[in-house]
């Protein structure tokens, strides 16, 4: 543990190593001003078996109108990171800056005002909608909470929003239980977007939906982004969906970001052995699929370790086919991928530069 924090502390130091959040921010300035900056954040939970840190020295930036895909396996801390950004859990260290406001230091009134700009879409649409409310009232509720409109105006705007998310306003009097899963998720999306937020945290928003409904919701999220200029933090374990929707991607493993860059760079030229393993295990419907599956154990092995028993050095080393002595003892620092044509492709691995590129059958074209 001490190694890890020592390594990550360097990022916060004045002598900024290449690839830190600040360098990345400068390099990606063409994407518009940042709406969210997470700097060196730690979230610690105290459990009966001791403290765990599902978010452990994480830094990331989301620019205006941009979609950042956050990928990783279940239990890697990606949902906790989402909840931290929403201020549903607190940070034990580090800062979360949203539209220039440090959320840890903002007053309750300021936070309330900022919440209107920061919304969320959950995975389980049924569980996140009040079963006793009509869907018009559900979509209108944020306007009421934030006192943005009187009751007549609220209904009018809710109906307009229902239409934007592809629901006929004549359904407005229905309860969530009378809708299909896809329609329920549209209600959740409408509720998130009605206050015209700058950032929406989408936590596995399509994972519970059947494939044909999934594609409709993906298209809807894309359309709304184009129309409203909202930024998304898109949390998902489904790499193909993330590839499809994201401008940039961050790969998370056991509480830390191990690689980030444009979606194209990360999927066409994954550098971290874990990203390579994730990409290799995507089952793609094509003729190379059997060959790819036969090769998959070359990229990683075993299951994700527990937060109660975080490996020393690089956290991925027990599963990594490229691990050497240094990986067991020293935690790698995020650095820019030198020699890469991209400007903001960063990776935290001792050996990324020596590892042969992934075979053509695995990388995304």
């Amino acid at each position, binding site marked *: 543990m001490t190694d890890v924090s020592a390594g990550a502390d360097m990022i916060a130091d004045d002598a900024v190593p290449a690839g830190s959040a600040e360098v990345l921010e400068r390099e990606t300035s063409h994407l518009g001003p940042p709406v969210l900056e997470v700097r060196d954040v730690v979230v610690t939970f105290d459990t009966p078996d001791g403290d765990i840190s599902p978010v452990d020295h994480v830094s990331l930036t989301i620019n205006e109108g941009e979609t950042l895909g956050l990928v990783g396996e279940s239990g890697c801390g990606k949902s906790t990171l989402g909840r931290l950004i929403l201020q549903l859990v607190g940070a034990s260290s580090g800062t979360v800056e949203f539209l220039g406001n440090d959320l840890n230091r903002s007053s309750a009134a300021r936070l309330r005002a900022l919440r209107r700009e920061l919304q969320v879409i959950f995975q389980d649409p049924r569980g996140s909608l009040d079963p006793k409310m009509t869907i018009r009232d559900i979509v209108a509720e944020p306007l009421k909470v934030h006192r943005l409109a009187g009751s007549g105006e609220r209904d009018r705007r809710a109906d307009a929003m229902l239409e934007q998310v592809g629901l006929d306003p004549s359904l407005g009097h229905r309860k969530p239980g009378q809708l299909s899963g896809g329609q329920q998720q549209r209600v959740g999306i409408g509720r998130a977007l009605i206050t015209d937020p700058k950032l929406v945290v989408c936590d596995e928003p399509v994972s519970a939906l059947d494939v044909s409904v999934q594609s*409709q919701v993906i298209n809807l999220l894309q359309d709304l982004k184009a129309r409203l200029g909202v930024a998304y933090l898109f949390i998902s374990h489904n790499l193909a969906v993330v590839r499809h929707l994201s401008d940039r991607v961050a790969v998370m493993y056991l509480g830390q970001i191990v690689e980030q860059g444009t979606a194209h760079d990360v999927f066409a030229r994954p550098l971290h052995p874990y990203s390579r393993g994730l990409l290799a295990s*995507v*089952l*793609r*419907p094509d*003729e190379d699929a059997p060959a790819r*599956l*036969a090769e998959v154990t070359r990229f*990683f092995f075993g299951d994700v370790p527990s937060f109660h028993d975080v490996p020393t050095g690089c956290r991925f080393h027990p599963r990594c086919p490229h691990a050497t002595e240094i990986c067991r003892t020293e935690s790698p620092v995020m650095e820019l991928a030198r020699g890469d044509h991209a400007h903001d492709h960063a990776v935290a691995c001792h050996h990324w530069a020596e590892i042969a590129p992934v075979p053509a059958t695995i990388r995304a074209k």
Partner: protein
Amino acid sequence: MAVPLLQVRDLCCSFITRRGEVKAVDGVSFDIAEGESLGVVGESGSGKTMTALSMLRLFGPASKVRLSGQVLFEGRDLLRMSHKELRTVRGGRIGFVFQDPLTSLDPVVPVADQISEAISLHTSLGRKGARMRAIELMERVGLPNAASRADDLPNRFSGGMRQRIMIAIAISCNPKLLIADEATTALDATVQAQVLALMQDLRRDLGMAMMVISHDLGVIAAMCDTAQVMYAGRIAERAPVPTLLRSPAHPYSEALIRLVPKMDQMVHHRLRPIPGSPPSAIGFEPGCRFAPRCEYRHDRCDVMPDTRDVGGGQSAACWLVGTDREIAPTEVAS
């Protein structure tokens, strides 16, 4: 030609509910050859799982199920067998793995005992022999330190490990056919890939045939020789997997392939969802069940099409087959 391992003929399965008869499986016929891996793909409610449950008659005693047709396995009809006989086939010659390993395993029985129970039921091995075989199987499915973990309860294992235990139970009696119903759907991608790789390995080693049921075309592409696309209780298309992916013959297969996001697709490429939703299984309209959502729909679709042979092992239940109006090739295989 040798007789196929499994021949399903005109299998129908319906439930009697207060609202009427629900036709979950409606006239399904297919074969699985020795050692063949057949994938069954379709959306929720298409009848994939019900086909497998009907084949093995895995319904609770109280459920009001009407089954008809034939399920010939090694020459014997599973639908007309006594329950006693059927029990020797289930878990013996036919193994199965379902989606949720936590509810399929008994939470208060050590894992090795659960595996040896299956072995004792179907073989003449004694208690000690069955336990040794159980530990051997735990090693075979890639559980580290099998001997020392044999007496652990299921909750001591991760989801992936539990699914490996389910696989150990399923293969404990060297089945000729393994049915895997969404066996890896609940697992994380990296764990799913490792479990599927194990299943491929076992299939090769044991010479088993497989029936892989999944909503995920990627799983089917990685695991199967042949694929069968189901829609509203019927088989829409059957084809060798590469053929299906390259040139689907049924408009539903084409739409299904097209609507999933692909790793190789340009970012911000637009998906093409299928309009509408599947029909209710209570009182189907006559005619092709996909017609209301089909972009190639024409007058003949008011009559239910037969399964028509395309050639090269491909067949589809669509009037388009054999006409010169071909389905445009999809972008998936490139």
